[in-house]
C-alpha cells in the first residue's frame, strides 16, 4: 500500500505544453508514473512527451480513463483547471502552480466540501509513493520505498529531510507536500487520516512552519486518534512577526502562528519535535 497514488494511478498533466509541464511530465514518466495524457488548454499541440495531448480534460478522461490530475497552468487559469478536473470526476487533483489567489482557493474549498475528490496544493511539490509513482516536481532519486510517511508545507526542506531518511535507510511510504499557501486543498489532518489507514506506513514525519494553526490542529488530532508514532520539525523559529517568509502562508500575524506555539502544542500532545532537521532520524530510531 501507500496513500493517494501508486503504480495504477492514471495521470493527466494539465498545462502539459508549458515549460514546467513538459519538463515534469517527462520526469514523471521517467520515474515510472503512468502518465496517460496531457491537456494543453491553448490548443497548441496534440502530442507532448510521447503521449497524446488534448485541449480539454473531458477528452483526456474519455480516451484514457484518467483518475488523477497534476496542474501546471499559470495562476490566473488554475481555478478553471481545478473546476474542469472536478467536473470530470478525477479523484485526486494536485495543484503545483504558485500564486493562486486566496479567494480562488476559498471557492474551491466550498465547492469540494462534500466531494470525494482530494485536492493537494497549490504552491506545492506534489506527492510521491517511492518505487510506485511520482506525481510532482521532487527529485525522484532521493527517495526509497519504505514505511515512513512524510507530510510537509515545504518543498526543498522536505527533500532535505527525505534525503537524510534515505541515507539512514528509512524508506518512505508516501511523501506529501501540502503546499505553502494560507488555504491548502488538503490539510495535515486530511493526509494524516490517510496514513492512519495505510498498513505500509508505520510512522510519520510532519514538517510544519510558521503561520496559521494547522500544526496545532494536527497535534490534537494525533493525540486523540492517530495510532502511529509521529516526529515533527517546525521551521521559522527566527522569523520576525508580520513578515511573509517566502510562502504566502508563512506569516506570524497578531502574535498567532509562531513556531514556539506550534512546538509547544506538539510536545503537549506527546509528539517528539526535532530542534534542527539533523535530529529527525535519531528521533525516529529511538521511538
Amino acid at each position, binding site marked *: 500500500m501507500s496513500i493517494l497514488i501508486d503504480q495504477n494511478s492514471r495521470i493527466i498533466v494539465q498545462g502539459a505544453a508549458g515549460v514546467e509541464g513538459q519538463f515534469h511530465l517527462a520526469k514523471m514518466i521517467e520515474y515510472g508514473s503512468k502518465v496517460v495524457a496531457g491537456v494543453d488548454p491553448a490548443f497548441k499541440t496534440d502530442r507532448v512527451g510521447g503521449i497524446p495531448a488534448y485541449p480539454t480534460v473531458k477528452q483526456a478522461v474519455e480516451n484514457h480513463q484518467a483518475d488523477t490530475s497534476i496542474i501546471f497552468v499559470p495562476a490566473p487559469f488554475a481555478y478553471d483547471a481545478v473546476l474542469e478536473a472536478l467536473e470530470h470526476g478525477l479523484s485526486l487533483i494536485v495543484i503545483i502552480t504558485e500564486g493562486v489567489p486566496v479567494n480562488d482557493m476559498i471557492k474551491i474549498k466550498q465547492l469540494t466540501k462534500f466531494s470525494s475528490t482530494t485536492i493537494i496544493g497549490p504552491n506545492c511539490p506534489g506527492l510521491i509513493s517511492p518505487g510506485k509513482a511520482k506525481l510532482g516536481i521532487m*527529485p525522484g532519486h532521493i527517495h526509497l520505498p519504505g514505511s515512513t510517511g512524510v507530510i*510537509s508545507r515545504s518543498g*526543498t526542506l522536505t*527533500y*532535505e529531510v527525505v534525503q537524510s531518511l534515505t541515507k539512514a535507510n528509512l524508506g518512505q511510504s508516501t511523501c506529501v507536500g501540502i503546499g*505553502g499557501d494560507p*488555504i491548502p486543498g488538503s490539510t495535515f489532518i486530511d493526509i494524516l487520516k490517510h496514513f492512519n489507514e495505510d498498513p505500509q506506513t508505520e510512522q510519520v514525519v510532519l514538517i510544519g512552519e510558521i503561520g496559521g494553526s494547522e500544526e496545532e490542529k494536527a497535534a490534537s488530532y494525533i493525540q486523540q486518534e492517530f495510532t502511529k508514532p509521529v516526529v515533527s520539525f517546525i521551521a521559522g523559529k*527566527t*522569523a520576525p512577526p508580520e*513578515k511573509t517568509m517566502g510562502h504566502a502562508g508563512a506569516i506570524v500575524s497578531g502574535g498567532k502562528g509562531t513556531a514556539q506555539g506550534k512546538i509547544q502544542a506538539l510536545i503537549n500532545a506527546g509528539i517528539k519535535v526535532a530542534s534542527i532537521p539533523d535530529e529527525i532520524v535519531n528521533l525516529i530510531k529511538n521511538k
Partner: protein
Amino acid sequence: MKIYEYQAKNLFSQHEIPVPLGKTIDNPQQLDSIFSEFNSPGIVLKAQVYTGGRGKAGGVKLTDDLDQAKILAREILDMNIKGLPVKTVLVEQQIDIKSEFYLSFIQDRDNSCFKLIFSPQGGMDIEELARVNPDKIWMKAIKYFPGLQSYQIREILTQLPEISLSAKKSLYTAINKLYNLFIATESSLVEINPLVITGEDKCLACDAKVVIDDNALFRHPQLASLRIPEHEDPFEREAKEKKLNYVKLDGNVGCMVNGAGLAMTTMDVIKHYQGQPANFLDIGGGAKSQQVYDALSIIVKDPAVKVIFINIFGGIVRCDQVAEGIIQAKNKLNINHPMVIRLIGTNDQLAYKLLKNENLQVFTEMSEAAKQAVKYLEESPK
C-alpha cells in the same frame, strides 16, 4: 500588499464609505492652505506607515493651532516608526465622536471562508481586546457563496441596544459597503478601527486598513499601482524587482537558500549554533545562475553582513548552475566576505569541481556548514 491609510480611505470613498475630510502633506508649509480649506480649527496629524502601533509611537497628534501644527508635522515627518521612515502625513478634520466601534472582514484561513469581526469597543488594539475582553468581539462566518447576508448584520446590530435607530442604519450601510469593497479588491483584510458614530448620528471611518492578496493583484492593476516602491526597504524592493523573496533581519550572516521552508530552517540552524541571520532570502525552486548572482549582489550591499552562507538543495535546481552564479558574483562583485557553501543534489560533483578551482570550500551537511559560518563570524574583525 499593504497600502497607506490615505490610499485605503480613497478606496473607501470610491465605495461610498464616509471618511473624514483629509489631505496628505510631505511638507509642513502645505498646512497653510489646508487650514483655510478645512474651515474648522481642530485637526489630526497622522503618520502614514505600513505598520501598526503608530499611535503608541507618537505618530498621531491633535492640535487647533496652525503654528503648532507645523512643528508637530515636522516632528512626525522626521520620525522612524519600527524602522520605517515617515514620508507622508495625513491631515484630517477632528471629529465629534459619540461612540466608537471596530469592524473588519478577513480571509479566514482556519475555516476556508470569510469572517466578519465587530466590536462595540472600537479604538482599541483588537489583539489586546481579544486578550482582555474576548466577549466584546463578535464574529460571523461568511461563505463565499452566497456572501454576507442581511440577517448576519442584523444579528450583530441587535446586540447594540444603546444606540439610536438612525445610527444603526448608518452602521448597517457601512458594514455592507465595506464587504463590497473587501470582495471587489480581493483583500485579505479590511479594517476600520475606530468606526465612529458622530454627534449627528453619522457613520465615519476614522481609520482604514486594507491588505490586498498579492496573488490576486494580476486581476487588479489599479490596486497594484498603489504600491510605492520608493517607500519600501531598499533591499526588499530590489529583491522584489528581481523576483527573489527577501526579508531583512538584524544579524550578520547573509543567507541565500532555495525554497522558503529550507530558507527559514537555515536561519534557525544558524541561530541554533549561536549565529544571527542577516536576512531571509529564497531564490526559488527553479533558480539558475542569474538568480544566484542577483541574490549575492543584494546580500553584499548590506553593511551588516560579515559572513555569507549559501545553502542549496538541488532538486530541480542544478548545482553546477548555482556554482557558476557564485563564481561570477564573487569575481565581478569582488566579494571578500568569508563564504560558506553547502550544496548537494543534481550535478553536485560538477559544482564541486568548479568551486574547488576557485578555492571555495564546499560542505554537504547543513549543520557542519552552519558551524563553520559561526566560526568565521567569531574570527571576523568586530
